[in-house]
């Protein structure tokens, strides 16, 4: 899943046409391969560092077991990864959206607010279209608002989305006086919850406790990766996004509809946050006014760790998912390891460490990106 880079499109003089033989083309593939190596090494480290545990009479490795990797890592990373794909599209286009957590929260609350009015055993033919359309429309509208403000006011996207982060959260707080939905004795329809998004199947195992899996969030995530990959790599709109992120001025002079592209990337980011909100509401069967608070940091971290360049023009949907996977593995590792012995010093890990590690991951990823950019520029100089 390689994709063109802005550098290569600029080198061609036409941002919409990729240069297939350009050397920079190999870079993203290397980036994703590098991420896979990191994931593999992290997995090995956690497997060897994790102490064996006893689960209902069976001794198993605390990390490397299907009961941990799928339900505790892959499933809860789904909504983060979906948002990270949207976040990556914006970053590729040279922008940033820090309001994704609030859009996610609004979409989740909107879905719960509408669905709680249905009977718990309402028909899936009525429930599912509503459950899918409502969060997607909310996400899309929020994304369009962000895009319109960035384009219309010509303001820095960080400032615009910082403002909308607060506005969207405020709207959620005002609109849901009960702070948590479904309200009172109401519940969300089974057609969306237990029969769809949190549908569960059990695998009975001879020498282990039964395995309970909820695969739908992961399936939605995979569909989003495929959609993101097609958009960025196989559509003109995707190529335009890379071109815009690589050099906005060059794109404008090349006749690209810069404003429209910007509007589009923010709309898609909002849409992705809406999908993630739908998945989360279906998985947890509820939403509250704090849903999604602080998620923007994880989403941007996943995108950046996944190879998206904050200066624009580089990034991929697969990279975003791999970035989210690395972050979730780190979080899970902190849970699994609990303490690390460094000679005479024992470091007791707790959930707070994940914030430090995510912060470090962002800085390291950006530093690596800068370094690779430096070497690429140097190499380009030599080829000239």
């Amino acid at each position, binding site marked *: 899943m390689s994709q063109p880079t802005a550098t290569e499109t600029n080198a061609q003089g036409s941002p919409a046409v990729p240069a297939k033989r350009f050397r920079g083309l190999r870079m993203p593939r290397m980036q994703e391969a590098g991420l896979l190596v990191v994931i593999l090494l992290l997995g090995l480290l956690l497997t060897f560092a994790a102490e064996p*545990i*006893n*689960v*209902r009479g069976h001794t198993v490795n*605390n990390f490397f077991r299907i*009961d*941990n990797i799928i*339900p*505790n890592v892959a499933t*809860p990373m789904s909504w983060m990864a979906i948002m990270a794909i949207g976040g990556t599209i914006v970053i590729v286009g040279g922008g940033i959206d820090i309001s994704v957590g609030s859009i996610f929260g609004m979409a989740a609350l909107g879905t719960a607010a509408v669905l709680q009015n249905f009977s718990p055993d309402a028909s899936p033919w009525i429930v599912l279209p509503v459950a899918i359309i409502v969060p997607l429309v909310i996400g899309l509208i929020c994304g369009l608002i962000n895009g319109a403000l960035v384009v219309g006011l010509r303001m820095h996207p960080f400032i615009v989305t910082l403002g909308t982060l607060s506005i969207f959260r405020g709207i959620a707080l005002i609109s849901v*006086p*009960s*702070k*948590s*939905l*479904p309200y009172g*004795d109401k*519940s969300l329809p089974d057609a969306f*919850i237990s029969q769809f998004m*949190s549908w569960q199947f059990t695998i009975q195992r001879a020498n282990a*406790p039964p395995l*309970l899996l909820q695969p739908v969030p992961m399936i939605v995530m995979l569909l989003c990766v495929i959609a993101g990959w097609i958009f960025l790599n196989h559509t003109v709109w995707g190529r335009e996004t890379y071109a815009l992120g690589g050099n906005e001025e060059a794109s404008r002079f090349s006749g690209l509809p810069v404003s429209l592209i910007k509007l589009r990337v923010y709309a898609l980011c909002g849409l992705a946050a809406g999908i993630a909100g739908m998945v*989360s509401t279906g998985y*947890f*069967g*509820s*939403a*509250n006014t*704090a*849903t999604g*608070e*602080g998620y923007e940091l994880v989403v941007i971290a996943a995108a950046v760790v996944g190879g998206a360049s904050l200066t624009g023009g580089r990034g991929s949907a697969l990279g975003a998912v791999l970035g989210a996977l690395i972050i979730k593995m780190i979080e*899970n590792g902190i*849970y699994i390891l609990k303490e690390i012995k460094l000679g005479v010093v024992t470091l007791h890990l*707790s*959930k*707070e460490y994940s*914030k430090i590690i995510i912060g470090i991951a962002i800085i390291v990823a950006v530093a690596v990106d800068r370094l690779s950019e430096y070497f690429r520029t140097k190499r380009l100089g030599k080829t000239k």
Partner: protein
Amino acid sequence: MRKLTTVLSALLIVAVVATVHGAEKKKITIGLVVKSQSNPVFQACYVGAKDAAKELGPKYGVEVVIDWQTPPDEDAQKQAEAIEQLARGGAQAIAVSCSDANTCTPAINKAIELGSVVMCCDSDAPRSKRMCYYGTDDYSCGQRVMEELAKVMDGKGTIAILAGNQTAPNLQKRVQGVKDELAKHPGMKLLPDGVFHNAETPEQAAEAINTAQSTHPEIEGWAIIGGWPLFTKNALKWAPGTVKAVSVDALPAQLGYIRSGHVATLYGQDCYGWGYKSVEILLNKLVKGENPPQERVIDPLTRVTRENVDEFAKNWDKWLKK
């Protein structure tokens, strides 16, 4: 021969050590997922759970490990993830204080399906399949606050209620408790529109109570159903004793208001007990197979006044391990 004896003795010692090691106590892991690490009431809860593990473990003939998986700040989704992780990681029991009952309920039910025993403390998830709840009864908490306020105001005067978040169901129950108890005291009345809601941060709560008092000087007593303003210093801008007040919660920062005379009585919730008692209830279930006597085990509020404030303060030294 001597060598043989030495070798045999050594082997015997090794065998005995191995047997003792092999006969290690059964290990029970109890997960503790409360609302947030930053709130001192939950630090006390954690200390309570650890003390219970240390003290009750030998009594029950088991080794108890407390697995503290509380999010740094309130986040119901993180709580739900932690509950599921604990259950899949083999925790035999979990005690939960739900930031949002709706979000935690499916995770609690899943943990039960995976074989863990789950109970709630402090904040309940009544629609889940949890074994029981241990915490405050909000309605009677409101009643007790009003009963005490009536006592300190000699059954007469105008009162107001500092009520926190308007939509929190537990606070609504406390307000109702205050109102119903107030109706039993004919010499007392609630200021018209005298229920003052506030954002539940110390600063905003302090601002709310002082604004209300300065605009309605006829208020002679306050029923503070959550001790938010009392986390700040000098929150009550009136001379001690001129306006009477009774409040819920008795954390270290709040005890100063009893000493200064601004607040007549505090009703302390059993935050240490949320941990200690929960571990006890769970061990009873896991080791002895005994269920708690009721589905809702109500925490007896502790009445703190000037007479017992110093004695009560010592509890915090233990609860927060000072």
